[in-house]
C-alpha cells in the first residue's frame, strides 16, 4: 500500500497533521496503536489556558480541528486573567474526554482521502526516496512520515515501587527511537510527566468546596460556531485545598516516592510539579489549590488537578482523604508518573522536519513539549508543510512576532530542552498583539498562502473585510459635544469638557472605558450589525493601538539586532567567546543573533561581544 503521508500516533498532534494532509488532498494514513483512543486526554480534561487558548484559536483560524472538537465536548467554559486586560486573557474549556475522543475519531475517519489504521509500528526505514513503515500486520510505503507518538517512546510508568512499560495507564509503549529508526538523536535526559489519581464522583462531598460554574460569557473556540451556544450540558468544577495534614503525609512518605528515591531519573516540568514536588520544595507551604474537574457527563471519574503523584497506592489514599470534600473519595485509578524519550529538536528545521532526513517530521510531546495545544500546533505545522512540500510549494511557518505557534516553533528548534516545554505568555515578546481576539487577523495571511479555497477561507475573508470597514468607521466618526442619547459611559459630559472633536478611536482609548461595551453601543445606535469577533477585535485593537506601536518601536530596535546575520565561522574562531559558549553555538548553528540569544546557558559577556560584533 502506498501513501503520500503517513502520520504515526493519533493524539492531538497526529490528528491535526492528518487533517492538513486531507485538506491538501493527500492520500493520508493515520497509524495508531490498537486500544488507544484517538485524541484522548490522559491528563487534565481541558483545552486552552493562559497562552494555550491563543494557540487553540490560531489552530482554528488556520483550519485545524482542536477548537471545533473542544466546543463539541465543552462542559465548562472560563476566561482566565479576566481582570488583567485583554492581551493576556485566555479561554479554557473543560471537556468531556470521552465525547472529545469519540468526536475526534468520527471526524478524522470522515475526512476525505484519510484511512485510520490501528496497528503498532515496529520499524521505519527509507529506501529509494520512499519511507517504509512496518507494522505488526504489513509494510506501508509513503512519501512523507510524521511521528507524533507522544510519551510512548520507550515509555515507563511508575506508581510507588511498581514500574511497568507503557505510554500511559493500560497501554503498551512503543519501541525505543533507535530501534524504530536508526540515526536519530534523542536527548540524553529522559523527561517525566505525571498525573493524579482519578476519583469516583459519587463519593465526593461537593458541599465543602467552592463551586466554579461554567461562564456563559466565554466565547466558543471555533470561529464558525455562534459565540455562546454550548453544544452539550454544562457542569461545575470545584475548588478545594490541601492542608498541613495532607502535606505531612506526603512528606512522611518521601523515601517511597519514585521521584525522590532515585527510581525516576527523568526531568519533570517545574511549572507542573507533582504534589511531592510541592511538599518537598516548599516545606513551609501546606495550602495548595486542588481543582476538582469532571472528566465527562457520563463518566464516573473526576480529575483532582494539582495533586499529581506517583506515591504508592496506600499513601495516595491516605493523603487524598485529608482534603476537605474528598474524605470518602474512592480512587478509581491511581496517580502515576511516566518517563519517556524525547527527540533533540535542534535537529529539526522550522517545518519540524529532520534536517538530515528530508520527509521525516516530528510533532508533539515527542519533541519535549507538554500540553495538547502545543502538540496540536506542531502537528498542524508539520502536516501543512509536508503537504506543501509534496506539491512543490514554499513552506508556511507562522513567525514568533505574530503567533504563539511561531514562538514555540522557534524556541524548539533553536534550543535543547532540559525540561518539558510549555507556552507561557512570557515567552512571547509581542503579547500586546498576539491575542486571542485577533487570531483571525494574524492567521489570515498564512491561511491565504495555503492556496486552498475552502469555506473557512471565505469566512475569514468576510471577517477581514468587516474588520476593515469597522476600523474605517472608528477612524472617521467624530463626536463634538454630544455622544448619544441615553449613553451610560458619562461621555456626553466628557465631550462638552473637551476643546476639540474626538474620533471614536480616541474615545475607545480612554482608560476608564471598556472599549467593547462602547463600540457595541455605538454600532447598535447606528444600527450596524457586525460579526461578534470583528466587533471585539476592532474595539480591543483601538484600545491597544498606541501601546503596540510603542512596543513595536522597542521591538524593532531589538529586532534589528535579532535579525542580524551572524558570521558563524568567525564567532567559532574568536578568542572573545568562551569555549563552552562556542560549543553550544556550534551545536545549534543559529543564523541570526535572535536565535543565538535564545540558546540556553550563553554567558552575558559572550552575548555582548557577539552583539557588538567584536568577535
Amino acid at each position, binding site marked *: 500500500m502506498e501513501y503520500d503521508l503517513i502520520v504515526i500516533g493519533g493524539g492531538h498532534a497526529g490528528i491535526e497533521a492528518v487533517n492538513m494532509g486531507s485538506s491538501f488532498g493527500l492520500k493520508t494514513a493515520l497509524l495508531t496503536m490498537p486500544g488507544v483512543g484517538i485524541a484522548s486526554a490522559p491528563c487534565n480534561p481541558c483545552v486552552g489556558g*493562559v497562552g494555550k487558548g491563543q494557540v487553540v484559536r490560531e489552530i482554528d483560524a488556520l483550519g485545524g480541528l482542536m477548537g471545533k472538537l473542544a466546543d463539541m465536548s465543552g462542559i465548562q467554559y472560563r476566561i482566565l486573567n479576566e481582570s*488583567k486586560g485583554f492581551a493576556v486573557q485566555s479561554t479554557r474549556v473543560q471537556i468531556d474526554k470521552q465525547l472529545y475522543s469519540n468526536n475526534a475519531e468520527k471526524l478524522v475517519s470522515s475526512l476525505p482521502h484519510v484511512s485510520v489504521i490501528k496497528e503498532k509500528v515496529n520499524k521505519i526505514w527509507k529506501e529509494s526516496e520512499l519511507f517504509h513503515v512496518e507494522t505488526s500486520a504489513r509494510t506501508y510505503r509513503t512519501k512523507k512520515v510524521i511521528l507524533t507518538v507522544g510519551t510512548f517512546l520507550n515509555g515507563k510508568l511508575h506508581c510507588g515501587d511498581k514500574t511497568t512499560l507503557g505510554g500511559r495507564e493500560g497501554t503498551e509503549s512503543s519501541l525505543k527511537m533507535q530501534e524504530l529508526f536508526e540515526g536519530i538523536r534523542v536527548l540524553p535526559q529522559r523527561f517525566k510527566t505525571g498525573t493524579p489519581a482519578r476519583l469516583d464522583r459519587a463519593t465526593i462531598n461537593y458541599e465543602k468546596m467552592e463551586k466554579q460554574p461554567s461562564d456563559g460569557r466565554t466565547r466558543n473556540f471555533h470561529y464558525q460556531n455562534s459565540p455562546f451556544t454550548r453544544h452539550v450540558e454544562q457542569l461545575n468544577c470545584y475548588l478545594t485545598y490541601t492542608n498541613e495534614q495532607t502535606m505531612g503525609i506526603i512528606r512522611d512518605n518521601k523515601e517511597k516516592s519514585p521521584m525522590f528515591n532515585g527510581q525516576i531519573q527523568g526531568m519533570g516540568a517545574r511549572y507542573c510539579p507533582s504534589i511531592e514536588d510541592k511538599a518537598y520544595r516548599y516545606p513551609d507551604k501546606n495550602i495548595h*489549590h486542588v481543582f476538582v474537574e469532571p472528566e465527562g457527563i457520563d463518566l464516573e471519574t473526576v480529575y483532582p488537578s*494539582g495533586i499529581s503523584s506517583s506515591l504508592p497506592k496506600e499513601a495516595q489514599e491516605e493523603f487524598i482523604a485529608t482534603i476537605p470534600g474528598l474524605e470518602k473519595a474512592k480512587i478509581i485509578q491511581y496517580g502515576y508518573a511516566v518517563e519517556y524519550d524525547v527527540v533533540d529538536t535542534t535537529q529539526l528545521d522550522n517545518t519540524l522536519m529532520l534536517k538530515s532526513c528530508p520527509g521525516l517530521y516530528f510533532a508533539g510531546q515527542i519533541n519535549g513539549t507538554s500540553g495538547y495545544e502545543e502538540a496540536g500546533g506542531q502537528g498542524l505545522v508539520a502536516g501543512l508543510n509536508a503537504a506543501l512540500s509534496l506539491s512543490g510549494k514554499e513552506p508556511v511557518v507562522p513567525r514568533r512576532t505574530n503567533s504563539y505557534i511561531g514562538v514555540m516553533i522557534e524556541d524548539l528548534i533553536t534550543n535543547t530542552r532540559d525540561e518539558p516545554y510549555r507556552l*507561557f*505568555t512570557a515567552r512571547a515578546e509581542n503579547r*500586546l498583539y498576539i491575542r486571542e481576539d485577533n487570531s483571525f487577523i494574524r492567521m489570515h495571511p498564512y491561511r491565504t498562502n495555503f492556496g486552498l479555497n475552502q469555506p473557512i477561507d471565505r469566512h475569514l475573508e468576510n471577517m477581514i473585510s468587516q474588520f476593515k470597514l469597522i476600523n474605517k468607521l472608528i477612524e472617521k466618526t467624530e463626536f463634538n459635544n454630544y455622544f448619544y442619547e441615553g449613553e451610560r459611559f458619562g461621555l456626553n459630559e466628557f465631550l462638552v469638557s473637551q476643546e476639540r472633536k474626538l474620533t471614536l478611536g480616541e474615545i475607545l482609548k480612554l482608560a476608564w472605558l471598556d472599549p467593547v461595551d462602547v463600540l457595541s453601543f455605538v454600532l447598535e445606535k447606528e444600527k450596524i450589525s457586525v460579526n461578534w469577533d470583528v466587533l471585539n477585535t476592532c474595539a480591543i485593537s483601538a484600545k491597544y493601538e498606541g501601546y503596540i506601536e510603542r512596543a513595536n518601536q*522597542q521591538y524593532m530596535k531589538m529586532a534589528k539586532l535579532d535579525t542580524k546575520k551572524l558570521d558563524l565561522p568567525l564567532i567559532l574562531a574568536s578568542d*572573545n567567546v568562551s569555549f563552552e559558549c562556542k560549543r553550544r553555538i556550534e551545536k545549534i548553528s543559529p543564523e541570526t543573533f535572535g536565535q543565538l540569544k535564545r540558546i*540556553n546557558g550563553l554567558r552575558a559577556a559572550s552575548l555582548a561581544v557577539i552583539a557588538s560584533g567584536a568577535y
Partner: protein
Amino acid sequence: MDLSQYYDSSDAIIACSTGELENTAISVVRISGSIGPESVQTVLSKSGSIEPKVAYVVEIIKENEVLDEAVLTYFKAPNSYTGENVYEFAVHGNQINVKRLISHLSDALNLRKSAPGEFTYRALRNKKISLSQVEGLDQLLNAKSVFALDSGMGLLKGELQKEFLKLKNLFTDLKSAVELNTDFSEDVGEEAGKKIFNDKFNEFLSHITLLNRRGSIEPEMLLKPSIGLFGRPNAGKSTLFNKLLTRERSIVSEQAGTTRDYISETLMINNNQFELIDTAGLRSSNDSIEMEGVKRAEEIRKNCFYKILLINSEEDEKVDGEYDLVIYTHTDKNNRVPEGDGSIGANLLVDNISEQIMGRVSKKFDELTKNKPFTVPRHREAIKNIYEMSCNFEDLCSQTSDIAVISSELGSIEVYVNELLGQVSTDDVLKNIFNNFCIGK
C-alpha cells in the same frame, strides 16, 4: 599614541608601570601578551623554569652583558591582571636605566610599547574587570581627595557593581512577579499574586530611591571640590583668602574692585584637596574686564562645593542666593551685625576664623560623602532615568490593571537597568519564578 587603534591588537606589549618622569629606587616594567616564559628566559641569566607567582632575582642580559638586576614575577594567563601572560620586572628606577631596558626587551622579545591604558583595556577585554571597575581605576589613579580615592577603590573592588547587581535582581523579581500574575494567576491566587507584585515593586522602588539619592550630588563637586569666596568689591574676600592660606597671595588694597579675575589656590583640609577661589566682586560695572570677572564668578558659584558670601556690614546689603556661610566684615567700623542663617557674624579679625571655616567645610564634605555618592556620570544618568521611570510606573499601576500594558512599561525600564548591567532574559525571569514561588497545578 591612541589606544583606539589597538582595540583588536594581540601584540605583546611593554611599559613602565610606575611612571617615567622621575628617578625612583624601584621601577616596575610590565609585559603582557601570549609570550611564554621560555621566550622571556632568553634575556635572562637565570636557568631553570619560571613558575607563576614566584618572585625570582634575575639578571637581564644583552649579549652576555648584564644590563640590570631585577626581581621577576610571572603571572600565567588567565590568572593575571590583563588575563594574558604577564611578567613584572622590578628594576632599578633610574629613568635612563628603565628606558634602556624597555628598548632592549622590546627588540629582543619583539614587544610593542603599550598605548596609555592598554593594560587595563586588555583586562576589560578579557573580562578580568568590569567597565565600572575601569572607571574606578581611573578615579583611583587621579584621586585628589581621600574621598575620591575611597570611591575609586570602591568601584575597583566592585562594590558599586554589587549595588547594581542588587538592583538587577530586584528588577528581575519584579518582572517575575508580573509574569507570575500573568501566566500563573490561577496557581497562586488573585490576592496572593497582587501582594507579591506590590511587595516586589516596593522593594525595587526603595532601592532605586536610595541609589538615586546617592546620585543627587554633582560628582565633579566632590571629586574636585572648591570653596568660593563671593561678595561685593572690597567686602574682604582677598583678606579672607590670604588668611585661609596663611600667606599673602591675593592683592589686597583699600580700593574696591582690585581682584578682577579669580585667583585660586590649593587648600588641604583633612587630607582632601580643595580649590580655594577668590572671585571678582559681584557688582555691576561698565568696565568690560570687570564684567567678565563678574560673569565668571557667577559660573564658579554654580559649581562651587562651599560658598561663602562676605558682606561689608557698613553697606546695607541683603543676602541674595544660596550660600553655605555668610560673613559680615568690617564690624570694627560698625557695630551692626545682622543675624542671618549660616552667618558666623564675625569680623575677619577673629583669631580662629580659619579653623572655624575649615571645620564647617570639612563637616559638609563628610556629610555629603558619607552616603557614598556616585562619582561616574554614566551611573548617575542611568540611575536617574530608572528612578524617574519607576515613579511614572507607580502612577500607571494605580490607573490600570491591564497587566500586558504594565509589563510593556516595565520593558522600557529594563532597557536602562540593562544599561547598568548585563541582560535580563526571559529564562532568567522564568527561572526566578520557579525558584522563588510555588506554582503549578
